[in-house]
């Protein structure tokens, strides 16, 4: 269990989406807790894909306005394939874990920049 959770957590696509989710929660103007709750409630791969789609839609509007870095397209494809391989719960836990961790220096600067503007 721990091995698969740790390996999913290390996956670049999960890191990419996790970073976007973290910024969506930390930047005061966004504070996208709705996406977090939808992700937490996703039980099936369809629910999970739906939650990701909604998150991206919400994030896109803010990212365009605030010039934020968006998750890459390959990451989305990879994330969905991870769900097929490991199941929703492990991918969900790994993704939400990234939302919890301290922001990196580059991210802190990005968030600070948004606050200044």
């Amino acid at each position, binding site marked *: *269990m*721990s091995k698969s*959770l*740790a390996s999913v*957590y*290390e996956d670049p696509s999960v890191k990419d989406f996790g970073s976007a989710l973290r910024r969506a*929660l930390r930047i005061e103007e966004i504070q996208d807790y709705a996406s*977090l709750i939808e992700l*937490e409630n996703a039980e099936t791969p369809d629910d999970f894909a739906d939650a990701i789609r909604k998150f991206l839609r919400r994030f896109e509007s803010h990212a365009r306005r605030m010039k934020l870095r968006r998750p890459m397209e390959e990451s989305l494809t990879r994330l969905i394939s991870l769900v097929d391989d490991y199941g929703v*719960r*492990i991918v*969900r*836990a790994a993704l*939400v*874990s*990234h*939302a*919890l*961790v*301290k922001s990196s220096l580059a991210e802190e600067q990005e968030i600070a920049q948004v606050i200044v503007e």
Partner: protein
Amino acid sequence: MQYIVLKSGLEIFDVARAYGLAACLYYGAGFRAPVIIDAGTVYLLEHDAEMPKHIPEECQAGWAACFDHKHWRDVLRTYKQAQFEAKVKKARNLLSERFGTVIEQFLLDRVIANEPSKDLENNLETLSGALEPTAFKGLRAPTRGTYSENQVKVGSVDWALACLGGSLVGKYISQRTAGNKWEYYVNYWLPERVTFDGVLDLREKLRSARLSYLGAENAAAHQAVLLAKAIRRRALTELKCTDRFSEVVFFTLFQSSQQIKPSSAGHASLSHLLKLALDPKPEAENVLNIWDYLFRRGSTKGAEGLAIVVTEFVIRPNLDSYERCLKELIRYLRKGVKGEFQYDEKTLKEVMAYV
């Protein structure tokens, strides 16, 4: 010399007897500590000294301090003051006056040959409910009626050793609860392989460490984290640290009317936690510090949810408890958490290894 304590099935009684016998050997051999090993159906005590026959002069003060009423009050909590004092005196007299005979009957050869000492009167004593919750039956305070329950009676030597071990090693955390009543959250660490002086040292380090707890499980989980931190500190500063505990056993005593009764109990494995504690990576230290912080934060009013999820995760680390912990932590980030108590990527990976 090797000594064994046969397990009876009463977990706390058994481990308290092992600690009690270890205390006798420790003080009897001039502070040379025995090693306590859980060997399945018995606790094996290995002692690098001749069998002591009495307490030497230089250890008399330490031995006398073992019978301090302050510590014995906890293991004999269910007795009224007069009875309590009589019980302490009885145990002290038995262990001090028949010291050599008491120890002799736990010698490995003696137990294997099944030769109980003829010099020792092994009268029956009622096991205190505060020492072993499964022995809790009915009234303990004096009443007009005469009650005697043979099923909770044990030999007086075993009883005295268990009380001694319990008073030295058992952790009893008292807390005032609703209705101005007291609750006691009790923790015993079960040894896998420990040196007795190591146990005393750890116990002393954690003697005053406590918070306002939600229950016995919460108290046990926090104390387990503190134990892991103390073992890690010791492992980092000493050349050799071989003390290993297998489990923590916990239960609650609560005040009901004039009596003390037991309630929720359980046990949790310490192997994962101690493995984490002895991991040389600095992230392991961060994990323990963050958990300690979460327990402290969870002990404040309005943050009980945090204490519940962290307790559950430390006691039962699995994907369910991990996810519940994540949910609660993310909500707490909004309320502000100091940077030093936030997970970074590497630290969180260590936590995942614990799942």
